[in-house]
């Protein structure tokens, strides 16, 4: 059976890839050691009987907070979507290629 409370370097490498962290091999070794420690201290969660318990997404129930479908007619004149970046071209944001 899989031990959920252990993380190996391969898994840390996989996570580094999907979360775009560019970790070095040294960092991966360091993090997997730290995290194994942490996970070991989390293992006690297995003791808790959760049968029939609902997942609490929020501390209090938060329901049906909606917006009416009205489009803002006027834009704030000061609003410039491109003001926070140098990577732009014309009215477009500029970003990296896909492949």
């Amino acid at each position, binding site marked *: 059976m899989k031990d*959920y409370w252990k*993380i190996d370097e391969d*898994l*840390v490498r996989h*996570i*580094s890839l*999907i*979360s*775009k*962290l*560019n*970790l070095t091999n040294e*960092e991966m070794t360091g*993090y997997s050691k*730290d*995290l194994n*420690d*942490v996970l*070991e*201290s*989390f293992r*006690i*969660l297995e*003791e*808790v009987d*959760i049968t029939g*318990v*609902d*997942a*609490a*997404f*929020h*501390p*209090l129930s*938060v329901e049906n*907070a909606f*917006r009416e479908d009205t489009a803002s007619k006027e834009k704030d004149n*000061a*609003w410039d979507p491109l*003001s*926070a*970046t*140098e*990577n732009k071209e014309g009215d477009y*944001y*500029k*970003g*990296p*290629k*896909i*492949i």
Partner: protein
Amino acid sequence: MKEHLERVKAQDFDNGEFIEKVMQSASNISNEYSAFITMAKDKPNGILPISVKDNICTKGIRTTAGSKILDTYVPPFDATAVSKAKASGGFVIGKTAMDEFGFGTFSTNCAYGAPKNPHNKERVCGGSSGGAACVAYAADFPHIAIAQSTGGSITAPAAFTGTVGLTPTYGLVSRWGLIDYANSMDRIGVIGKCSYDAALGLSIISGYDPLDSTSMNRGATDYVKSIGNDVKGMKIGVPKEYFDGVDKDITENVWKSIKLLESMGATYEEFSLKLTKYATPAYYIIALSEASTNLAKFCGIRYGIEKQISGNYDEYFSAIRELGFGTEAKRRIILGTYARMSGYRDAYYIRALKIRGKIISEFKAAFKRYDSIATPSMPILPPKFSEINSLTPAQTYSMDRLTTAPNLCGFPTISVPAGTINGLPSGIQLIADHLNENKLVALASACE
């Protein structure tokens, strides 16, 4: 603060001179204790000096959330808490230091320098709202610090600096404009010198906001009215698990405060919160699952630090994130991503959400018997910077064990000074049922 407002009311007051003095003093605090990341540049206007934790957006004032990845970010809008404070005469003096994105217990995971404890500069302020608490203590002017908590980030620094930290019910203060750590727990609150300041601050910034879907739909409340309210007949629960492994002197001080409340007519009873030890792991799993998605957006396009575009998106985003995030942020992204990965999310994320449900029920049952639950704020006195380095991440995370449960469950808490030990402050944390901030303010003012 109270005297200041009375002088303002009586117009016995030169506003220009006042603002100048405040800004000069704030600048001194910044130099002395590294309490600010960014000072307000333009000459502010108002009667009420406020400092704002740097993960709360301020229009036109750089907001980094303590991270290099947002080094260049100037928000185009104010957080609702800030605009409400401004509407009440508040003016922003600066953005206070914090752990990167709130990721810390001591305010030592800081991209812009760690704030120093005003009681002893070799010691930490506590985190993650360390700068806020530091300014609240060190200010020689009336001031309210707008701070924020996810797992104890108001209580911890309030206890370490000897200030009052009020963390309101989840949803009472709008999160619009807050740079998210864990959206289902993040709460904006206040730190002040005394319970009056904290109560005033909360009265100003709380209230319904249509911009935040989790904002509670209720009107403004004046919490200042509860200052000095009789605590006679109030029942206080003292959970024994919250004293396990706590510094002996702190335990003693907390008991002194409880006895003080007893002398004023409150009663107390020891009891047990059996799920206590599960709160911290459950907290970290949920908080980091959410945090790792919140941090995905930082990738060097649209805003924040960037480079000349090169390579494919995988390469470019990775280069920016490698550069922009600190060690603890990366650690938490890894753990949070792990906890929600397919094949693991049921064992971690979903299980933790269910355990949260159980812990909420346990507290709710206790609040049927008690008006408030009293615990130490932190298990230790403010440590030295040099002592922090020897802690492993697992040890550091366990330092949050007294604050994670109320944060996980959205209960309001207030941390009030409970005496000093060798010149270092200790604190008592009072927890109440949702929306019972008035009881906390009454109890806190009684403790002072």
